[in-house]
């Protein structure tokens, strides 16, 4: 009997498959559910309980005790825009990691912010010891992509915050939540952004952000909240301050199901690291990964030395059924850092649904395709 292989390796783009319960919960909301907190009949009360339960479990996942400081949003990009556009940049200067996504770079650029890059190793890993006081002068905010969506490098966020002291840190946890440990309170994180449809295995259209001190941000979207309804002014309390309008309740149902029913990893880290190591030593292929395997998440990139990037992805799919994305992955800064701009790379990313056999199949498929 042949075992069905999971050939989907584009989980850094969006996760597949999802737990079956994700669709079930969402259908349940579409068939039976109500709105959020706008009245007091049981259909609304039940849906409101689900939204608040989801906020609680997100708080546990990201290490936040004051869960009211977690606002739901429609994706990480929207959440990042609310933070960057709601923050007062006194000196209009920020320090960013060298592996930032355009979800960060474009909102900053739109505001005309002076963007400086943190000191780093060749794989983009930040050299915390080189963050000197002179570098921090007039810096309004430090922004770090916790896990790179290109080479999978995990940044030392807690140490970075220790080094920058009182300067606020914004952590883009889009690729890390659900995969890499995250402790917002313990690490003294000021702002953290997450998405629901990647490591958490939830539906698209879900995500949000945590803010340690809500008064540090102005709201950028205003509207009905079901609170302070006699006033034309937005509430200043949380989470209402950043949650105008009806949230994506159907999506939040699915997100809760995803978190509750996420399976344990079906693969072993050693197996995954072994194929990266083998590919890295192959003279016919360029691999973008963490220099130190301790800093490696379950994402890496590669492309054949003699061949184009998109053709590599196309051949992997047509010959072996491997589903992956090629190009810049919306991260031109990361590719400039890694020396892979403008051609980009083919990215491989796992989910908990993969098995060691799937990873071995991927390895064989890559080797076969570059020959």
């Amino acid at each position, binding site marked *: 009997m042949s075992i069905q292989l999971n050939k989907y390796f584009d989980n850094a783009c969006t996760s597949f498959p999802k737990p079956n319960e994700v669709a079930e919960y969402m259908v349940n909301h579409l068939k039976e559910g109500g709105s959020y907190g706008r*009245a007091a009949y049981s259909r609304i009360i039940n849906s409101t*309980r689900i939204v*608040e339960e989801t906020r609680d479990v997100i708080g546990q996942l990201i290490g936040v005790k004051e869960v009211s400081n977690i606002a739901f949003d429609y994706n990480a990009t929207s959440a990042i825009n609310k933070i960057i556009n709601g923050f007062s940049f006194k000196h209009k200067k920020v320090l960013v990691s060298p592996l930032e996504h355009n979800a960060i770079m474009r909102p900053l650029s739109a505001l005309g912010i002076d963007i400086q890059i943190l000191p780093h190793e060749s794989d983009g890993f930040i050299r915390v010891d080189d963050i000197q006081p002179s570098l921090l002068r007039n810096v309004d905010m430090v922004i770090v992509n916790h896990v790179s969506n290109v080479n999978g490098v995990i940044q030392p966020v807690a140490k970075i915050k220790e080094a920058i002291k009182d300067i606020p840190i914004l952590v883009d946890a889009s690729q890390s939540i659900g995969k890499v440990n995250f402790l917002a309170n313990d690490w003294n994180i000021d702002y953290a952004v997450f998405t629901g449809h990647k490591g958490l295995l939830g539906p698209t259209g879900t995500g949000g952000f945590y803010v340690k001190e809500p008064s540090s941000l102005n709201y950028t979207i205003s509207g009905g909240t079901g609170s302070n309804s006699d006033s034309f002014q937005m509430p200043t309390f949380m989470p209402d301050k950043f949650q105008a309008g009806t949230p994506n309740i159907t999506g939040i149902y699915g997100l809760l199901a995803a978190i509750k029913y996420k399976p344990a990893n079906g693969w072993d880290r050693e197996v995954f690291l072994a194929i990266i190591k083998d590919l890295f030593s192959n003279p016919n292929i360029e691999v973008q990964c963490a220099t130190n395997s301790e800093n490696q998440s379950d994402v890496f990139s590669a492309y054949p030395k003699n061949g184009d990037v998109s053709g590599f992805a196309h051949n992997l799919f047509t010959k072996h059924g491997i589903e992956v994305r090629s190009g810049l992955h919306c991260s031109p800064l990361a590719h400039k850092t890694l020396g892979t701009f403008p051609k980009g790379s083919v990215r491989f990313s796992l989910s908990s649904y993969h098995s060691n056999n799937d990873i071995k199949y991927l390895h064989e498929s890559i080797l076969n395709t570059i020959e």
Partner: protein
Amino acid sequence: MKILLFFQNTHAVIKAEKAINSKGIEYQIMPVPTNISAECGMCIEINSADYPIAQECLEQEAITFQQILLK
């Protein structure tokens, strides 16, 4: 007699419900009466005899609330 408990927002209502429910207190989630507040959301009704326990558990959870005795 009944007591109505009012909270800042929906998030606090659900947090309060969880706290009150954990103490075995009978409660009912109600629309906020328009003659009391212009809110369009929820409040919680309990028996006045249960108020001391409810007050204690809400304070333990640091949930800010106001109360009105219904006669």
